[in-house]
């Protein structure tokens, strides 16, 4: 079983290019990601890391080359196999915290209206409450997003992204707008959820230390070639692919226990 999983990477890019007209954003991208990795992506603005995230999400399609999920071309529109947390605007302002989470199950079980009633609703409410509890939002379940702090909003966005149990979680600078202290709490939360839900995480960040701290693998996006007279002529690629010391295998065995103990004490 393990051998098979390793033989078939979860995500694979083969000679991937992305161009907008003459502007080459990404070029010659070749990567392979196994299930359970935590990839952090850093690089200067406009270096294509967000474009790559959008391709993983299905909002952008490769100009040439292949991007494969389980060996098949990645679906070309967003769906429940890949969850996303944006820096902002990704919770629904007209729904309470609880409604924001159960809406995902309502989409699933009520194909026409996307709304559940009665006992069916009761079941998903229980599930949503448990999930909200695991991100620490129990006291706020009946509040609207505008009543929440920035950190709580992101906790909600994460809970929302996890309820459909996606295999891949995409994070687009999710903690960029938060205060440093709150950011540290969020780091513990995301590591805990990553392990509990067996997620493969792709995270775009501006913060290199955050990238090293959270990831099992750090990618640096940069241009391999530069033409000072035509900055758009060459695209970026992954110039460094660094395994970070907390590899999944180790984490699973030793670090996990310590981490969990640490977070438990904290909580």
């Amino acid at each position, binding site marked *: 079983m393990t051998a098979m999983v390793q033989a078939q990477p979860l995500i694979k890019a083969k000679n991937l290019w992305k161009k907008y007209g003459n502007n080459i954003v990404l070029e010659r991208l070749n990567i392979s990601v196994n299930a359970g990795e935590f990839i952090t992506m850093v690089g200067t603005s406009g270096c294509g890391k967000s474009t790559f995230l959008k391709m993983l999400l299905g909002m952008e399609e490769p100009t040439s080359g292949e991007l494969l999920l389980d060996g098949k071309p990645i679906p070309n529109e*967003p769906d429940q196999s890949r969850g*996303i947390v944006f820096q902002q605007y990704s919770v*629904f302002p007209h729904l309470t915290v609880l409604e924001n989470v159960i809406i995902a199950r309502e989409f699933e079980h009520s*194909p026409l*209206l*996307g709304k559940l009633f009665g006992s069916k609703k009761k079941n998903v409410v229980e599930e949503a409450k448990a999930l909200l509890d695991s991100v620490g939002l129990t006291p706020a379940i009946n509040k*609207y997003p505008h009543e929440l702090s920035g950190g709580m909003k992101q906790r909600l*966005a994460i809970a929302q992204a996890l309820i459909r149990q996606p295999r891949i979680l995409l994070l687009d600078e999710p903690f960029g707008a938060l205060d440093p202290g709150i950011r540290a709490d969020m780091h513990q939360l995301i590591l805990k959820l990553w392990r509990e839900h067996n997620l493969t995480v792709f995270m775009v960040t501006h913060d290199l230390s955050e990238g090293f701290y959270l990831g099992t693998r750090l990618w640096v996006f940069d241009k391999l070639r530069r033409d000072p007279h035509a900055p758009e002529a060459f695209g970026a690629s992954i110039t460094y692919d660094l395994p970070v010391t907390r590899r999944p295998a180790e984490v699973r065995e030793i670090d996990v226990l310590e981490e969990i103990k640490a977070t438990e004490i904290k909580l």
Partner: protein
Amino acid sequence: MKRLINLTPTKPSRWLLGILPFVLIILIYIISSDARLLENSTDKLLPSFGQMGETIHNYALEPSKRTGEYLFWVDTYSSLKRLFLGIGIAAILGFTFGLLTGAIPTFHAPVSPLLTIISLVPPMALLPILFIVFGLDELAKVALIVIGVAPCIARDIQRCTLEIPQEQIIKAQTLGASSLQVLLRVYIPQLLPRLISSVRLTLGSGWLFLIAAEAIASTDGLGYRIFLVRRYMSMDVILPYVIWITLLAFVIDWLLLKTSQKCFAWHHQGAH
């Protein structure tokens, strides 16, 4: 002494300052009316409040000698019926087209240019066509309101639809939502309070089209009445009717605002 731009009146003085213009206008009216009536007791231009009260008493509480109807209430009922019908149909049409053009690119492509052109046609210029096509009945008057108001609502709702952050729409898709579910659960609930404010803004032109249509071809209605009695220079009817129309407009606007605040509290508490 602070700069003028930094001086803010206290709450009671704001109230007083707000009432002041009304008091002044009424005072000036009473003085002018008295002066004119003193010169000529049959003057029609500036009737006294007593005269106006008497006229409205006759219109509202005495049955008409000719038809046996209470004209004031019949006029109000006819006008409000036309207005509500017109604005209601315009709101439904405008909301549907605005939502679909804003949310669905395939619908946007063929409809949006048409919508832009239609909203530029002056509705009053279409009134003769409406009378020819729909006859002089209710339908033409309602149609004028619809044609005048629906494109404005549609364009406003389209703009609001496009303002909803794309992140939310993508998020909904990653939660497994279909196009219909995104419309029903993400777009429509967030656009309903926008529709209410859109209707509030277009009610002014709704009244304009209503009164214009009634003035030209009608046998009852508030607009019909004031244009009818203009022939006899009956300011004692026109002025109370104008005040009554203004009051109705104010009450409708207030009710819409309260409805919106009650049903969409999240919208009014600074969440967009």
